[in-house]
């Protein structure tokens, strides 16, 4: 099976180490959600994994081909970066959307013009406009169009829905799923809008301060992590010997986020309330600040 592998990826900017030895295997035909706080290193990781930036240490391979400076490997990967256009028409900002798309397609051997045309229509994007005249949401549409139309086996989306209205976000999820079903490509999608995208991720990756702290099947994770609350000693008894995150205490009452063993079930008792948690709540419990 085709895989993309990151081995021991370290990235330093000067003396500032932002990725601390990341090991990660992405399998073909899966949709991964990459979730992390601002500054966690998501964009850095994706740009290194796609060969756009060098790693300080470590190696990326796709189907055992080194990615760095290797066109055969690079042809299999698309990383559609967030477009940050500065005011005025300097640089990329001065390009019309259609010229930007024309330039982008030269990087991808499988680029699909028909899919591009369909997406332009679905998003009602005016391709004659200059990038500098587009809103944040419209710039996101441009990056989505490049990513989907690239037809690259490994495609990374960097906050594709940032600035998109709710209807356009829904359009993106549907078309991405459709393309995924047809092609069996691998998608990595980073996002801060966790809950609405949770159901399309087969697996989630939590990136916290330069480390992957979790890689799990989304549905299984949501089933395994519960919120337990009650009198302190009763909650402590349940926490004993289990992985526990984010403990809160109010008077005699205590609450904790608890990871159960696969298949294990914890029922409500008269003493302790056990509640399911959604992906966003789990992320906050694992990567948020301790109270």
């Amino acid at each position, binding site marked *: 099976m085709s895989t993309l592998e990151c081995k021991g990826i370290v990235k330093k900017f000067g003396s500032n180490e932002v990725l601390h030895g990341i090991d990660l295997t992405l399998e073909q035909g*899966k*949709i991964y959600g990459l979730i992390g706080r601002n500054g966690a290193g998501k964009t850095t990781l994706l740009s290194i994994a796609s060969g756009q930036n060098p790693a300080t240490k470590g190696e990326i391979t796709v189907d055992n081909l080194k990615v760095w400076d290797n066109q055969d490997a690079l042809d299999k990967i698309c990383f559609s970066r967030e477009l940050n256009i500065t005011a005025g028409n300097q640089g990329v900002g001065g390009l019309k959307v259609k010229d930007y798309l024309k330039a982008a397609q030269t990087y991808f051997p499988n680029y699909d013009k028909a899919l591009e045309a369909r997406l332009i229509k679905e998003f009602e994007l005016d391709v004659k406009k200059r990038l500098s005249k587009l809103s944040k949401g419209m710039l996101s549409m441009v990056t989505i169009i490049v990513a989907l139309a690239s037809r690259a086996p490994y495609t990374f989306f960097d906050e594709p829905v940032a600035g998109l209205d709710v209807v356009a976000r*829904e359009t993106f*999820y*549907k078309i991405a*799923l*459709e393309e*995924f*079903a047809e092609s069996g490509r691998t998608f990595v999608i980073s996002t801060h809008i966790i*809950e609405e995208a949770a*159901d*399309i*991720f*087969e697996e989630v990756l939590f990136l916290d301060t330069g480390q992957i702290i979790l890689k799990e099947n*989304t*549905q299984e994770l*949501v*089933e395994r992590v519960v919120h337990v609350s009650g009198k302190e000693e009763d909650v402590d008894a349940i926490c004993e010997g289990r992985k526990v995150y984010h403990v809160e205490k109010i008077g005699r009452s205590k609450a904790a986020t608890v990871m159960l063993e696969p298949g294990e079930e914890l029922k409500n008792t008269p003493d302790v309330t056990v509640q*399911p948690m*959604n992906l966003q709540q789990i992320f906050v419990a694992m990567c948020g600040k301790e109270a």
Partner: protein
Amino acid sequence: MNEILSKEKSIYIQISEMIENDILRDILLEEEKVPSTNDLAKIYTINPATAAKGVNILVDSGVLYKKRGIGMFVSSGAKKLIMKRRKAEFYENYVRAIVEEAKNLGMTKEDLIKMIEEAE
């Protein structure tokens, strides 16, 4: 297949329950093809693997069966099967809980039966 997904339960369980509801309501008939996992994924904006998990629950319980290369079909007798299993679940999840709570409240068996009759 027109219900909406809630956050209360696992998505794949909701998918299997929705298909079951459609069978009970004669929206999906026995020996009829059910939507593919890719169709379900698109309708509900969920991962196809999750949709497949929901469908596979029904295959394992005999409600659906697979025709190789064609898709999933509703088994004959599926309706009866679903009813039977739901009755068993009703007993486990509701009836036992009701009896338990009635005991906690100090109610007699007669009190409980009277209450049920009133509710009708």
